[in-house]
């Protein structure tokens, strides 16, 4: 530095190999908000191009799953859903569960699926998982609409379902579910870049997790029938979300403030850890992917 005037230059930013322990540059994410929206648009527009049924596919999957569950778990296995029609009971659980898995599956492949773009251009990487969560929210909206339709049908048939004051908090519950899927997905996506073992794990892991998440049975039932293993479900934050969903929408089951608080805490921790690991990975993943 023999020219003193050079020191006057103000640097806009600097690249170094050292990581800050935690960096979530929200200002930068905000600058790229248009990109987020365009990614969402891309996801929504292109998924069902060159299909005949188009967005109807969004509806077919939960409907058929609910029908199958109703036949297998309620009609054959005889799980009692109380006063609520089993089909509606299953549809509520599946709709919310689907949102979680869609977020998890989508985000957990962030680095792999976008290696092409990430290898060439810089933008805040977190835009991609965020856009997945948002575009899945639209998909969830469509699926929720169909749930409302069936809800109306059963309601006028005189089924003992109803809403209560907690229903107002349902959007918050969905946000929590999305954040949980996002955090977990980012965490896994980072591990997958180097060790592909994790992508195998997530394939069947999610399936197994569903059985632990009270999707097709009431939480109280598992405690009653399987007292020794019931705690597995009780420690699963997803189970509380599903159970609470049914309480909010169908007025069935129980709402546990303790359980929700626990879920909230887990969500925050998972999200922070996810962002942390994601940040560490994004800097040099392109060398290992």
């Amino acid at each position, binding site marked *: 530095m023999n020219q003193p005037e050079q020191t006057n230059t103000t640097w806009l930013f600097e*690249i170094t190999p050292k990581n800050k322990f935690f960096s979530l540059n929200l200002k930068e994410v905000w600058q790229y908000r248009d990109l987020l929206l365009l990614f969402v648009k891309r996801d929504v527009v292109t998924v069902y191009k060159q299909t005949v049924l188009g967005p109807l596919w969004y509806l077919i999957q939960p409907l058929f799953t609910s029908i199958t569950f109703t036949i297998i778990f309620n009609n054959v296995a005889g799980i009692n859903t109380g006063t609520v029609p089993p089909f509606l009971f299953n549809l509520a659980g599946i709709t919310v569960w689907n949102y979680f898995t869609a977020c998890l599956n989508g985000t957990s492949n962030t680095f792999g699926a976008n290696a092409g*773009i990430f290898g*060439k*251009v810089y933008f805040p990487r977190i835009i991609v998982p965020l856009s997945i969560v948002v575009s899945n929210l639209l998909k969830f909206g469509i699926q929720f609409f169909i749930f409302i339709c069936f809800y109306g049908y059963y309601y006028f048939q005189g089924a003992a379902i109803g809403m209560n004051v907690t229903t107002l908090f349902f959007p918050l519950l969905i946000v929590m579910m999305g954040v949980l899927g996002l955090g977990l997905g980012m965490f896994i996506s980072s591990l997958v870049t180097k060790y592909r073992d994790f992508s195998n794990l997530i394939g069947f892991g999610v399936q197994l997790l569903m059985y632990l998440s009270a999707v097709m049975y009431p939480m109280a039932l598992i405690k009653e029938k399987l007292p020794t293993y019931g705690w597995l479900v009780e420690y699963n934050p997803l189970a509380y979300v599903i159970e609470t969903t049914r309480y909010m929408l169908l007025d069935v089951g129980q709402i546990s403030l303790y359980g929700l608080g626990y879920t909230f805490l887990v969500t925050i921790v998972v999200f922070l850890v996810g962002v942390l690991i994601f940040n560490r990975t994004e800097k040099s993943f*392109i*060398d290992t992917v």
Partner: protein
Amino acid sequence: MKDIILKAENISKQYRLGQVGTGTMAHDLNRWWHQIRGKENPYLKIGDINDRSTKGESDYVWALQDINFEVERGEILGIIGKNGAGKSTLLKILSRVTAPTTGSIKFGGRVASLLEVGTGFNGEMTGRENIYLNGAILGMTKKEITSKIDEIIEFSGCERYIDTPVKRYSSGMYVRLAFAVAAFLEPEILIVDEVLAVGDAEFQKKAIGKMQDISQYGGRTVLFVSHNMAAIKQLCTKTIIMENGMIVFEGKTDDGIDYYLQSNQYEGYIGHYVNEAIQESGIVSLALVDNNNVIRTEFGFDETVVIKIKIKVSEKHLNAHLGFRVVDRNERVIFTSEIKFAEKNVNNGINDFEVQLPTKFLAPNAFRLTFGLHIPNQELIDYLEECLSFEIVETGSEFYMYNGNDYGCVFVHCNWVLR
């Protein structure tokens, strides 16, 4: 006052060779263990120089080592180097795609990179939709794109197809559209890698012109990596030459291209020939040299090529002729040149000639030289078929934009008169 917009300090990048497996996990754990105890990464001390052809000692390799340079505002910096010299790694670090292993880079402005055009293009979406998506990926806001979209479409020359999915585009149209988006970016620093390799002559010219405009009138800085010497020469004010992950030259573009040609002589060409065993008459030695009397086989288009000839002539051959023939890669005979000893006062014994080929005459191509010493229709004294070979490299001839097309073997300056 120097207005430095980008400053790279001691950048190094280490890569691990081989496959990811249990061994990598062990190294990861070891590295992590060192980190926990606050010690330095143990694998940073080892590592070979990045030379692709030799077998290395270590699993680690330095793709870049101690790179230092500065770029001023408005400058177009060219980066040249052979395959594997580390150019792309450097650009990846500069464009924030990957982080350096050590060192730091400071930026005084927004960066946009154009490492490979069409990044993030989605085949299912139309040209217009892709302009928005690609523009946003490159860092533009929707508003910025909307205000420029007409210009972008016009520049790309794809107006007719703009509402067709880009998967139906030809590869040329694809590149045009992608470059058009990038050309209307307004970053302070634009990083461009090998875009000009594709696209036709007209578009290449347009692209180069646009880059010049960007830096001259827009005051923006361009980092440009290419193998195309002509484009580098036309565009860049300053050049960096990389070799084995290190900067070996930094300076003016003209000097840089000379340096590159001199240091990267392809071994397949023959620059000199010696035959000491001539008894009576014959060609003792031949050499291709440049202005500075250095033997070379690759010359820039505008460089002087000199053939040094040493011959031995005996008394009875003082009426002989000495000539050579130039043949190009396609076996076309370009020209023949000959002298008569009788007219040149050639002495009995050793004689030295220097033949200067006309500069800016041979079109870029590979050439072979055949020499003959003879008395016409009487005796063939010495004949050396294709004993020398060399290449004329395109470094900015007037036809460089037709590179790849056959526009002839030589440049001829005809007298064009407008009447």
